């Protein structure tokens, strides 16, 4: 995949499949330490130790429609190509936390891409899930919480097309401000 936003979209599908009601997506741009860190944490069903040990194996999957599960292994490979790493913590019944680190300055680090589109797609398709998005750099940060957005909307569905369009603009504007600050 050419963009990190598509990897995020892919990994969050696992959280959705795990019946998560909350998904935290944190992106930290740490130029000082040459790290670009993405953390995706959910409160889904989690995994037992046996499953966790196999989860980065592309030939292991819990799906029944096919015999491979390449999402996590592809992300891991992309990270390692930039001198980074991928770790997963999980506890059955509590949730899962995936942390992937890329070399910030490495030429093979994919661009973040259309994260605004990814987030609004996730929110639109899963309005019942609380999504928290945090984007941090050394100089500024942007936080978005669907719970707070719903409070402002006072009953208007967060997945209404006009609302999603407005949210996408919110993401784009705030992320551009972060980039401008850098």
């Amino acid at each position, binding site marked *: 995949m050419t963009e990190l936003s598509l990897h995020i979209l892919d990994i969050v599908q696992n959280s959705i499949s795990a019946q998560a009601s909350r998904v935290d997506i944190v992106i930290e741009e740490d130029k000082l330490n040459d790290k670009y860190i993405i953390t995706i944490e959910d409160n889904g069903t989690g995994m037992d130790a046996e499953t966790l040990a196999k989860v980065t194996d592309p030939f292991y999957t819990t*799906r029944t429609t096919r015999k491979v599960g390449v999402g996590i292994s592809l992300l891991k490979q992309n990270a390692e190509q930039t001198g980074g790493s991928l770790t997963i913590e999980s506890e059955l019944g509590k949730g899962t936390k995936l942390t992937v680190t890329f070399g910030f300055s490495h030429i093979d680090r994919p661009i973040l891409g259309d994260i605004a589109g990814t987030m609004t797609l996730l929110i639109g*398709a*899963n309005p019942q899930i609380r999504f928290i998005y945090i984007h941090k750099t050394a100089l500024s940060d942007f936080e978005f919480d669907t719970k707070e957005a719903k409070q*402002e909307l006072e009953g208007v569905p967060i997945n209404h097309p006009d609302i999603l369009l*407005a949210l996408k*603009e*919110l993401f784009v504007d705030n992320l551009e401000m972060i980039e401008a600050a850098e």
Partner: protein
Amino acid sequence: MKIKSLADLRSIKAEVQGKIKLREQGENAENIVQIKVAMATCGIAAGAKGVMNFILEEADFKGIDVVVTQTGCMGYCYAEPTIEVILPQKDPVVFGFVTKEKAREIINEYIIKGEMVDGMIPVSYKTVDE
């Protein structure tokens, strides 16, 4: 209106509420079309995100009552992006190799006119949940 903060959402809330009331007056749950877009790794890599966004925009533009959701792998990795279309009182149909152009054709010909188009994946199953 461009919004810069969550507080700005309140300013478009009233406008959206008006649109929802209008739609509810004309809505008939029995006539709602369901579209599921496969959004597993293979689908995402093949462009399912763009297809889903296009379907949402086109359905809104055409004024069709449609519920568009994402689903996991339907098992047709060779034919991604794939979508499942369920018309009212009809069996679900899966289409493969769905580009934006194919999605437009499916909407105009199959969903609006009820005429089958090329690209159906013929399998004997009911829905992806069964």
